[in-house]
């Protein structure tokens, strides 16, 4: 689809307010597919689950490209919070 606007300003959307607690919220963990990112995220999942968060895991096909639009849509509709992990 083509942008119908004058494209003079980048599309910006305000972030949601930071939640005071993660208990009961659905937190998405996005693995960008870099080596050992999963090790880090496994530990984060343990910690989040321990404080009452529901964790959902996602993975980008490759770290070299932005997340596909379908994956972004899936995370946006399923989660209240998302953590994107970088590794190196």
């Amino acid at each position: 689809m083509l942008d119908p606007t004058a494209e003079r300003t980048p599309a910006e959307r305000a972030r949601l307010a930071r939640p005071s607690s993660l208990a009961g919220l659905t937190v998405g963990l996005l693995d960008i597919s870099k080596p050992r990112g999963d090790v880090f995220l496994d530990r984060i999942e343990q910690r989040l689950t321990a404080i009452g968060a529901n964790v959902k895991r996602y993975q980008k096909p490759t770290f070299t490209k932005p997340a596909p639009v379908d994956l972004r849509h899936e995370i946006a509709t399923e989660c209240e919070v998302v953590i994107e992990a970088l590794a190196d």
Partner: protein
Amino acid sequence: MVVPVLRQLAEAGELTVYTQDDPDFPDAPRAVLDDDLALSWHHAIETVPTLLRVRDGVELERTVGWLRMSWEELTGVEGLGPDLPPFRPGCGSMSVDPDLVDELRVRHGGSVLRSRRVDVAAAEDELEMMFNRGWADGLPVVPPTEQRVLALLTGTSRAPDEIVATVPPDLADVSVEKVAIAAVMAGCKPEYLPWVLAAVEAACTDEFNMHGVLATTMPVAPVLVCSGPGTRAIGMESGVNALGQGNRANSTIGRALQLVVRNVGGGRPGEVDRATHGNPGKLGFCFAENDVDSPFGTLAGQLGVDTGADVVTVFAGEAPRCVVDQLSRTPESLAGSLAAQLQVLHHHKLVLAFDAILVMGPEHARVFAEAGWDRDRVITELHARLATPAGALTRGAGDIAEGIPAGFGDVALPKFTPNGLMLAYAGGGAGLFSMIIAGWVNGDRGSRPVARLVRY
């Protein structure tokens, strides 16, 4: 049918056969599959079979369909297809199939489109996505895909990157491509595009003052009055329900202009658009004049533009209102009725500040035409009935605070400036009615009507 000929040619010299769909046809000689139609597209194949003579990659000549004489002449091989009739016209190439051609234009045409591409997730509703991004005018809009925009651009000879106008309120330059995107979203067909382009040009002039028309608290918006043979060529309605719903060209051309103002110009309600009430015509208000039957010529003619040309006139107007007079059979009586209704526009005590278009229906116009009143006579007679003693218009007169400042003595003041009352001719054949479209602040302080020729 042509297979034996292909075998004859393959034996006689170098032959490459391409097939558009079935890889097993012909079975011998084997064909190169062109199922993405790239080769057919780039060689502008319109008919199958097409026979091309090529040397060093350069086409020297071609013949389409089956004509033995031409095939023999082109190949230099005699006695081709002795069992075949001498001539068969062939079939349409899949590369010009109307169901495929828009997609092929995107795939093989080499995109000329410069707009940012916006991805839509497979699970995302594209109509909802466009609402969420603020691109819609309150009704669903057609997704502006590359296919649809390229197809729409076939409606004009103008280059996609040509700048059409600078659009208020953001004063953003708008290209033919961006206008085409808005036209797709509005639901236009390609042949409407020249009209939309002319409307955008007309609305984005200092005279029309689109910024003011948008920003005002009054309920006005661009009203497009179209005339000329082109209105009939694209199927515009100038008769029954001309100002109403149901005709695609009438409904979408005005809407496309408003989508340009919204999305390119950044003019949105509650932001720069400060209308107290607005009016339903702000979704798009466009109709054609019946210039074939009009006893008065066209509105464009009144504004000094050639009456026979295709013209869009843009006027800052509010919603139309009806004048009912089913009993007048003399021009004097009917003029009296029309003048009484024209006097009250916006406020009966406010004069000279607002223009108006009187859209006369055929049954009212006939009363004047049969009496020999032409456009000038009708307007002159209306002006004569629209003069009110200043004393009756001053603030406080008639126990109404609204009115003109004191100090005019008792001179009679006209409702309209000399050019402020315009006449258009449209409507169905039955009904002794006319419509009035009242304007906004007129002249240099506000907006002037602007007429633009349609360029193809």
